[in-house]
């Protein structure tokens, strides 16, 4: 019954979405306020209905209702509760529900917190949101219905791959989707602005917080996915450039560019049509990404081929959403007049450079992901891509980004003084040289590119610190004066510094991976393995009983010199029900390096394969991502985004209700 109610709620939500995508739009064109405000109620109601449908599906999972096909295929009654719930979005149909749920959540947020928006803009934003909702709800109801019943119902479900039963993965998709779908708001604002025919500083100020919020969540989502891969797959890799990852990375790159170009629109009234285009492209990449890699099938063509009906629908959806918005762009964007003029060497110029590089980077990833599919069509050089392609194209593109990121914030708007900026960066330069020399010395001249990467990271990070110190005039002014400046500085400026330091930290972690050490050996209990100055004593392997698995758990004592550092327990788990094995790695970190152990197979003669890695600076990769997202959050707390809220608080006093 609850399941049917969920289905019914989805259909109702679809009806509301259709209403929302038409009436407010009409109202905005006619200047009819009542029609315009209809969008707010429908957005909130739509959210409630989709939340109900989502809850109904979760209920079916939690109660293990195997008469629902989706539950029977993706869950089983022995799973822990957390994974029963996570199983809801661990499959195509369920993840689509999560997708529209988040879409509706953002729609309701705009409806509820958008008091400071002009009514016509808000109506148009919500209408565009309604159109996206309509498309997706139709897609779910027509081709991917999660509420389909099975007759007769099976006694037990088929379960979820144990590898996927991990807290990191349980929360990874919701974060990614929050990011992807969050960009839909920027998209809606862009399309609404095109319809409206007006883009100004105020528009940018409304769009930026939404973009920033989506970007923060996406950053965390990508970092979580990468971290999950690192600690569960058991061989220490953390990024594979596979299509699934690229699909999330492309919107991130475009979103990062959008974030920066929106600053120019806000401060200088320039780059308008470019920013609009970026907003459209960012969400389009989210859409393409969501679809190219549906449900465990790697390449896009396979995904489309799985179910032609689904594939055609997706294509239609992409055509309407992306094609429609880009056509509108072609028609309306030329009328958007840019305001501010600026010299190439200026803050705007630096942000344009940032945009060009990020977009080129994004395009390379896009090509790398799709080229193998295009190569035949284009008749160009036949190649298949993988790590080598991305290492040679994407990585060099990011070097100038890192060089520019230190200098950019020191340039003035309109016309900057590069020589002056570089002069003020002498301390960062000195620090960079020091880091390069030390790295060169310590690693014995190790891979030049890795040393250079570390140097770039030092430059970007120190540059951000120097810029911050310059702003508060540290040392140049008395401490009290500096402190006053720290407090007077807008939060967004602090946020930028934190995020840029985060970028540097991540890059340092990536560069240092060149110096990782690995030992893969068969050891017997009592044997030892030496790595990076540590000695691993392989004491014993014991059988351990877990809830729905049995495990071989090793005791490995780690010593350095005479001191015992830690006792680690890498595990191999066997899930009898799914006949599957997962490895639980043991990681000892001191934030400067990870010691990473994974237990391999037994050779049947008392020996075990032990994989040991020493990975310098690897935790910094994710630490940096946390900094980046943290910087975003700090920036979001800036009071200038809240001006609208303050205005609302004052409003009731002005308009006393007649009593």
């Amino acid at each position, binding site marked *: 019954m609850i399941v049917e109610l969920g289905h019914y709620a989805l259909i109702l939500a679809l009806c509301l979405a259709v209403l929302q995508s038409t009436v407010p739009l009409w109202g905005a064109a006619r200047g009819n306020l009542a029609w315009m405000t209809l969008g707010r109620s429908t957005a909130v109601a739509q959210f409630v209905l989709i939340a109900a449908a989502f809850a109904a599906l979760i209920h079916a999972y939690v109660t293990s209702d195997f008469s629902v096909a989706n539950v029977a295929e993706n869950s089983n009654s022995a799973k822990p509760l957390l994974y029963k719930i996570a199983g809801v979005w661990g499959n195509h149909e369920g993840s689509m529900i999560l997708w529209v749920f988040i879409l509706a959540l953002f729609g309701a947020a705009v409806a509820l917190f958008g008091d400071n928006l002009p009514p016509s803009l808000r109506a148009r934003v919500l209408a565009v949101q309604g159109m996206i909702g309509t498309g997706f709800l139709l897609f779910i109801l027509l081709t991917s219905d999660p509420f389909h019943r099975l007759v007769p119902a099976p006694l037990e479900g088929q379960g979820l791959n144990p*590898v996927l039963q991990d807290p990191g993965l349980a929360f990874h998709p919701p974060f990614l989707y929050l990011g992807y779908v969050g960009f839909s708001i920027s998209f809606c604002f862009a399309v609404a602005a095109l319809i409206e025919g007006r883009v100004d500083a105020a528009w940018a100020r409304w769009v930026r917080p939404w973009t920033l919020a989506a970007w923060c969540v996406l950053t965390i989502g990508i970092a979580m996915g990468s971290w999950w891969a690192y600690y569960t797959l058991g061989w220490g*890799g953390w990024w*594979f450039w596979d299509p699934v990852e690229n699909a999330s990375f492309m919107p991130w790159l475009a979103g990062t560019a959008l974030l920066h170009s929106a600053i120019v629109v806000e401060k200088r009234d320039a780059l308008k049509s470019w920013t609009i285009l970026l907003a*459209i492209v960012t969400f389009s990449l989210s859409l393409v990404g969501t679809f190219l890699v549906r449900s465990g099938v790697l390449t896009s063509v396979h995904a489309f081929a799985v179910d032609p009906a689904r594939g055609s629908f997706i294509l239609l959806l992409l055509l309407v959403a992306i094609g429609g918005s880009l056509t509108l762009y072609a028609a309306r964007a030329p009328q958007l007049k840019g305001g501010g003029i600026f010299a190439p060497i200026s803050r705007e110029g630096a942000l344009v450079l940032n945009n060009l590089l990020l977009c080129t980077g994004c395009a390379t990833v896009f090509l790398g992901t799709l080229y193998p599919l295009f190569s035949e069509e284009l008749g160009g050089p036949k190649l298949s891509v993988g790590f080598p392609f991305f290492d040679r194209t994407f990585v060099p593109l990011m070097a100038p980004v890192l060089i520019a990121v230190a200098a950019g914030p020191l340039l003035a708007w309109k016309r900057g003084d590069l020589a002056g900026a570089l002069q003020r960066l002498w301390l960062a330069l000195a620090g960079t040289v020091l880091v390069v020399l030390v790295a060169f010395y310590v690693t014995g001249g190790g891979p030049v590119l890795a040393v250079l990467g570390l140097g770039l990271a030092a430059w970007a990070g120190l540059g951000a610190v120097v810029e911050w110190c310059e702003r508060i005039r540290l040392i140049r002014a008395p401490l009290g004066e500096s402190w006053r400046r720290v407090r007077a500085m807008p939060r967004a400026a602090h946020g930028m510094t934190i995020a840029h330091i985060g970028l540097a930290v991540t890059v340092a972690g990536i560069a240092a991976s060149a110096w990782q050490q690995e030992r893969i050996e068969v050891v017997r209990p009592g044997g030892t393995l030496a790595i990076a100055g540590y000695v691993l004593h392989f004491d014993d392997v014991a059988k351990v009983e877990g809830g729905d698995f049995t495990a071989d758990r090793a005791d490995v004592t780690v010593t350095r010199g005479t001191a015992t550092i830690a006792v680690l327990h890498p595990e191999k788990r066997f899930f009898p029900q799914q006949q599957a094995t997962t490895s639980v790695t043991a990681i000892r970190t001191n934030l400067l390096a990870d010691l990473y152990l994974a237990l391999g197979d037994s050779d049947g003669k008392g020996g075990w394969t032990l994989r040991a890695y020493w990975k310098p600076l690897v935790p910094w990769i994710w630490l940096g991502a946390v900094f980046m997202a943290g910087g975003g959050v700090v920036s979001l707390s800036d009071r200038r985004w809240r001006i609208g809220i303050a205005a609302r608080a004052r409003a009731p006093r002005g308009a006393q209700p007649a009593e």
Partner: protein
Amino acid sequence: MRQRLLYLLPAALFGVLALYFALALTSGRDPSLLPSALIDKPAPDFELAGLDGKDGLTLGALKGQVALVNFFASWCVPCRAEEPLLMRLAEQEHVPVYGIAYKDKPADAQHFLDQLGDPYRRVGLDESGRTGINFGVYGVPETYLIDKTGHIRYRVVGPLTAETVDNELLPRLKRLGAS
């Protein structure tokens, strides 16, 4: 006017992309026939451990025969779809088929073979995916035709279909003198 055209560019680019997707979707042409940079080049060397208690797989073991090397994984749905075709190749056509379990856990791979049948003479475990990277594997499944001298002669990306097997693989196998 020229500026207007510039604004049309994104829509035009997307149009091309959409057209391509539409063609790929409707043509029914097998999009999985993807050429490889390694065609007619020696196969990259590899030395892989085997499944529990069985021999592993090395490039050396393939020398002297015309063989198919199939990258598969238990977590890959299309791999299940092509399994019967591999069985047919191995049992009826007597083609030596070797498997490489790509980024897969040994027990998962074993279970996969127990469940669907094992067409492989030998299976190598490429848990790290490095052999896959060396081959330029784009995604699983992928199948490589390797001749007696260890040169890659043909590559099928994605699941095998009856047409690919009959029209592409079998004629080539015959030409190269499969025993």
